[in-house]
């Protein structure tokens, strides 16, 4: 690995000189570290990947199945509304919930101590955790998309491939939110409760499966500040093949949420014991 070097000077005369100069990591070294950490993070899910993916799939798919079974879907517009909302919900059920509990428990069992004792930046670790959560989001999203299209009788269209580059932008703000919530959970149990609260809020108290104008005014206001509202809107627009200025607006808002929430989670994720 290529490194530029900084040779520190001991302050006092009786201070020993460092046995080697400090290593300032190059971009290549940072990417290398990121790959190693992400790989370790993925290995950590050897025994639990199935349940993680199952959880991200089962609830949104169950909701689609329920709505189809009670025969409440009368038009294509309605089907697209529900499918887009469910795909956004699967992000909350999967990566966001995953991050809340992951960070909450990691704090409780002092998992970060291991990483802190390595010459590794917090940013590298945060991005590795988010990358893993992104990966866990994919099966849920794909599963909901395929099952929803089949059950609601929607066509599989080439334009739907636009969803693929759009997915990270939808996951990132939710990942930031999950990281923040996990950090503020005082222990693992509270993190679990927060994760469940998030599911209830996003699934049933936000315009995911319920149109915005049906929600009570306070929830309508809160919904404007929750990224999943814009994620669902964007998914619906792509599913309906209506790429217009509103989608551009959603992209803008989601980019803003991504930057804001990831910056906050980086700043406030205080892994050193205060």
């Amino acid at each position: 690995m290529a490194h530029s070097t900084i040779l520190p000077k001991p302050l006092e005369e009786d201070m020993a000189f460092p046995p080697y100069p400090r290593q300032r990591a190059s971009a290549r070294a940072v990417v290398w570290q990121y790959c190693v950490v992400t790989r370790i993070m993925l290995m950590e899910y050897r025994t639990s990947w199935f349940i993680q993916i199952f959880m991200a799939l089962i609830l949104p798919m169950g909701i689609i199945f329920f709505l189809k079974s009670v025969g409440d879907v009368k038009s294509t517009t309605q089907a697209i509304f529900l499918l887009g909302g469910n795909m956004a919900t699967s992000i909350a059920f999967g990566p966001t919930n995953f991050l809340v509990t992951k960070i909450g428990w990691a704090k409780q069992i002092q998992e970060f101590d291991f990483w802190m004792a390595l010459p590794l930046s917090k940013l590298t670790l945060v991005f590795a955790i988010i990358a893993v959560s992104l990966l866990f989001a994919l099966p849920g999203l794909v599963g909901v998309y395929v099952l929803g299209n089949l059950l609601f009788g929607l066509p599989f269209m080439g334009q739907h491939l636009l969803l693929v580059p759009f997915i990270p932008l939808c996951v990132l703000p939710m990942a930031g939110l999950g990281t923040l919530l996990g950090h503020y959970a005082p222990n693992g149990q509270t993190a679990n409760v927060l994760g469940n609260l998030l599911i209830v809020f996003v699934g049933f108290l936000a315009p995911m499966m319920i149109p915005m104008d049906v929600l009570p005014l306070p929830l309508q206001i809160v919904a404007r500040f929750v990224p999943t509202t814009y994620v669902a809107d964007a998914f619906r627009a792509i599913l309906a093949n209506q790429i217009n200025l509103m989608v551009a607006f959603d992209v803008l808002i989601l980019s803003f949420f991504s930057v804001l929430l990831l910056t906050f989670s980086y700043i406030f994720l205080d892994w050193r014991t205060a």
Partner: protein
Amino acid sequence: MSNVYTISELTKVYKGNTKKANDHISFTIQEGEIFGLLGPNGAGKSTLINQIAGLTRPTSGSIHLYGMEVTKSPHIIPEYVALQTQQMSALRDVYPEEALRYTAQLRGCSRAEARRQTKNLIEELGLGEFREKLIRNLSGGQCRLIHLALTFVGDRPIQIFDEPTNDLDPVVRLMVWEKLFKLNRQGKTIILVTHNVLEAERIIQRVGIINHGQLLAIGGIGELKERVDQRIRLELLLKAEYVSVPAYRDLFALLGEVHNLTLQHVIILCRRDSTRSAIDLILLQIGIDKLDDFRIQTPSLEDVYLQLGGGGSFGS
């Protein structure tokens, strides 16, 4: 000797607590030494090493590592320091070999070097027999050994160990002490927190005793031993059938200060100048055949720990 660490007036008060976990602690760690940090549970030892390893942010005071002020830049510390904490909460679902290889890589080793160090450590510490098991499925002792290996890998010049021999059987404990001694001979600075004072005494060169968050004593082992009770300790284990002989009890009282640990197990603290006559009297009036064990001990690191660490004098 030059200092690798200079710790000045280090104080730590945890959030929501008024009690100081560390109270204005100042000391230095010298390059290439084995420094032991002793103290009872809750004395503030782990808080102190967590601060010098950059895991915990000090409330006040400063830490200099190789002359660099690292109190506000703790990210510098892992470039030179490896830490073995008491618990291992990360890497639960990876195999020992993977954990070692990737940790070495994160400490800056090339792939080939990481592989070489991993192979050597697996052989040296006998980790081969459980290389096929996930760390989650290992026993407490095996986990501890992996945790130690993770500290060794990457070859840091300063290595900190918090209770390195907990959960280990006597044979493995001996191997770990040997390894630490070997590392020290290679020039590594070792900082050690342990309750296993008797075993640690063999390798520790300088010791700090901490209690109630304060550093009560620091110095070379010989230097500290001079500060404790200089009486010689005669430790006897009477055979069961002789425990109730009154004449023996009278004799013990005559020889010095007596502490009956059990009916069989007696400790006599006698003056240095009367040690020889005390031994002669015991051998003459009781005889070695009536004893299961008989030991003669000068002040040990354990006495230093007990007497200077707030444990009081022997037997209190």
